[in-house]
């Protein structure tokens, strides 16, 4: 077994499977039954399947993948919280984790007391925590709230406290999961700046996120996970493109987001993005024609069926949404939305949609289709409002 340097990460043929259980924990009865060889339930889920990965000290790695692709499992294995079934995982030096919102917080402790507790969890002494206290409190921008029990905190405040603590522990490796997405825009930017400083100081960073924006800004290298395996490993731009292509093509078009649309009377079962000529596409140019083909399934009579759709930017903000009454005869229908001129600028977008009763208070999302719009020179933003420039009458200033 070779020793790893501080800040170095090594995974060699790492595999880990989880049994799926309805109820957590086993009772003696279950243990006895299992001994008799009566095994029930679904087969184990392979969260990590023969993953080999080497991260050099000071490298910044992003991990993307769909839900259940093994992103969180990798972090928990690297943090030493979950052991491997086979293979080897090593993380050199001090490892600081930020895995979940408010994990490791005592709810009845004040913010300040939680700083002590979290410092202690990472092996710091009282003096070491006290030396950092003011800096952490200042960074968190919590003000007087730092002396109030955290059970009164909003999720944004929890993120600020959690991140402020993690960012001020002397880490060689930082493992950060998803959490950043909860904070407000200004604090996110501050976090990213702080992360960049830590990276310059030689810290190795592993960032798992659904927000490709954050990963793109911070990480040089990105690993795409799929079904517990490494589907792509390379420079960030290529990896993110690969990820989007994977999301688009996996199901022919769009991923199912609802586990069981089967129990709903109405559901969108397929979304396909096409170009003006009817060919399936996932990368578009601004101003091109786009066709969206929806397949809606109806399992019974419906009073006022409607189809709702929303375009979202990469942060999940709505860009455009609309709905339309459906005319269903029989089992279902196919609808086409023709967009003659795609007025979006470069970036990644998601199209989410659902079919439901018009008065459904919580329609949710049936399907998602991701697509990218290629960057255009000289313009930035979301909406394509490019027009033509002409010289107007010369302006005369009255004297």
């Amino acid at each position, binding site marked *: 077994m070779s020793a790893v340097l501080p800040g170095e990460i090594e995974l060699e043929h790492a595999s880990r499977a989880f049994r799926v259980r309805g109820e*957590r924990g086993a*009772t003696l009865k279950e243990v006895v039954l299992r001994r008799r060889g009566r095994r029930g339930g679904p087969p184990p889920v392979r969260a990590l399947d023969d993953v080999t990965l080497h991260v050099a000290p000071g490298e910044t790695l992003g991990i993307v993948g769909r839900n259940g692709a093994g992103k969180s499992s990798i972090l928990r294995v690297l943090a*030493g*919280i979950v*052991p491997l079934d086979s293979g080897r995982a090593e993380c050199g030096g001090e490892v600081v984790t930020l895995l979940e919102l408010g994990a*490791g917080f*005592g709810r009845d402790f004040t913010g300040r007391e939680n700083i002590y507790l979290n410092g202690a969890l990472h092996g*710091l002494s009282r003096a070491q925590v006290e030396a950092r206290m003011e800096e952490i409190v200042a960074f968190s921008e919590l003000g007087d709230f730092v002396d109030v029990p955290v059970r009164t905190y909003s999720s944004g405040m929890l993120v600020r406290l959690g991140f402020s603590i993690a960012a001020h522990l002397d880490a060689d490796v930082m493992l950060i999961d998803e959490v950043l997405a909860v904070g407000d825009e200004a604090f996110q930017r501050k976090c990213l700046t702080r992360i960049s400083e830590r990276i310059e100081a030689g810290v190795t960073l592993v960032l798992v996120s659904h927000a490709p924006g954050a990963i793109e800004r911070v990480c040089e290298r990105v690993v795409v996970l799929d079904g517990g395996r490494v589907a792509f490993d390379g420079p960030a731009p290529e990896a993110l493109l690969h990820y989007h292509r994977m999301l688009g093509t996996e199901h022919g078009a769009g991923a199912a987001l609802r586990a069981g649309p089967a129990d709903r009377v109405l559901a969108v079962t397929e979304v396909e993005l096409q170009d003006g000529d009817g060919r399936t596409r996932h990368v578009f140019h601004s101003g091109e024609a786009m066709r969206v083909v929806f397949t809606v399934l109806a399992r019974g009579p419906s009073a006022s069926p409607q189809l709702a759709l929303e375009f979202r930017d990469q942060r999940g903000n709505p860009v455009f949404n609309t709905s339309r009454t459906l005319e269903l005869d029989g089992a279902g229908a196919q609808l086409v939305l023709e967009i003659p001129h795609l007025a979006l600028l470069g970036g990644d977008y998601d199209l989410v949609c659902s079919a439901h009763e018009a008065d459904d208070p919580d329609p949710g999302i049936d399907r998602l289709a991701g697509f990218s719009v290629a960057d255009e020179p000289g313009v930035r933003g979301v909406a394509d409002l490019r027009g033509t420039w002409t010289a107007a009458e010369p302006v005369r200033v009255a004297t």
Partner: protein
Amino acid sequence: MLRYRFLFEQMVRRELRQRYKGSALGVLWYLVNPLALMAAYGLMFGVLLKVPGTRTEDYLLFLFVGLIVWLFFSQSLLSASGSLLEQSSLVARVRFPRETVPASVVVVQLVTFLVLLALVLPVALIVRGSLSPALLLLPVIVACLFALALGLALAVAIGHAYFRDVQPILAAAMVPWFFLTPIFYEPSKLPGIDRHQWAETLLTWVNPVAPFVQGVRDIVYDGRAPSAGVMAYVLVAGAIGLVAGQLLFRRAEGELAVVL
């Protein structure tokens, strides 16, 4: 382990804060419960129901000395058994020595025990005139009692994380175990015990808590040194309990984040 001394302190604070949060008495509840039990048992066995054959001389002191040992032991195991589950959000998401979770619970119980001992001991010394050099052995017995309770607490805590029957089994076992521990009686003085020698052996030596009760009572109530047999038993039981509990915990803690 030394590196995590501060963590330990913080975990004890966390334990103190969480158990009786929002209650008016707060931490004092740790004392209210045993004091209420002592009052109830005192009334029952000391006043209303005289156990035949036991010494009646300062009976309440005799009873309380045994009772506080038992309360420490049983409360440590009972509250430790669910401790990992209660702290599952921490255990599943942060890497730290997990022993500190059940251990901090036992330390809180130890503090309770020491406070009760500090209440009972001076009274016993005055009323019984039991001040003697044997008192120097008391810290040894208490340390061994702590080691045994800690070892078993580690075992039941990890056991309960894997099999959720451990805590209910333990809770059910505590009542008969209480009666099989010489707390409100002395085995050798029970009527007819000389015809059932095995019963006396069972009550005195097979039950691991009995020698601790005996030892503490010898010193505090009788003002004499415990027998060599009791001292040897106490030392060995403490050492075996702690080592075995720790080994079991180390072996099984790997999957802890998964099973919780």
